[in-house]
């Protein structure tokens, strides 16, 4: 399954398939990006981050890809499980604001995993 930008707020995938969640950012001065997962009734939970000097970073079952040319960020989840059902947010830090730690958050994509 694949979502295309923030105008597709819900992504539905079959259990065991790979999921790709996309995020577009507009500020070319952004130098740090984070993906968060928010389950129902909980706060956002850090998943993985990437700095702008990298194109790809892998974690456990997750990969983040950064394409600075088109200002696009994606989160790939391998072998999606029911426990992956949640809202996923991207967030960015604009260069120069790192001392205050301010982040700009996307609207979020809801991932639904069908058994």
């Amino acid at each position, binding site marked *: 399954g694949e979502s295309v930008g923030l105008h597709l707020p819900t992504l539905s995938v079959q259990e065991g398939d790979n999921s790709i969640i996309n995020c577009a950012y507009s500020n070319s001065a952004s130098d740090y990006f984070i993906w968060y997962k928010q389950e129902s009734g909980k706060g956002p939970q850090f998943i993985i981050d990437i700095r702008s000097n990298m194109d790809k970073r892998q974690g456990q079952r997750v990969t983040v890809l950064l394409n600075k040319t088109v200002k696009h960020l994606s989160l790939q989840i391998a072998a999606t499980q029911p426990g992956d059902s949640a809202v996923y947010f991207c967030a960015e830090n604009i260069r120069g604001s790192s001392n205050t730690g301010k982040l700009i958050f996307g609207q*979020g994509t809801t991932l639904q995993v069908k058994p």
Partner: protein
Amino acid sequence: DVKVTQSSRYLVKRTGEKVFLECVQDMDHENMFWYRQDPGLGLRLIYFSYDVKMKEKGDIPEGYSVSREKKERFSLILESASTNQTSMYLCASSLRARGPKPQHFGDGTRLSIL
């Protein structure tokens, strides 16, 4: 693991009341943040603090104030609660370092103003 604790999960208050939301973090983070989260509007920054007794307005500070008397504690105050302040409130903290660091969130306080 970083732990950010918000004092209440659910809170019901009346219009005009002064409301205090408390947040405590245990990782000695310099930066702390208050957001509200509403359907369709995402996370909006109310106030943040980068040190004790320091505070800066975020994107929607009207009707709110904050207090940071100790490094680990950041309080959000609704001076005179109104129904349009019914929302999910999220507190976060992050380390101030040479490079950017992720924010770590509490589980939120769902506040209803009647």
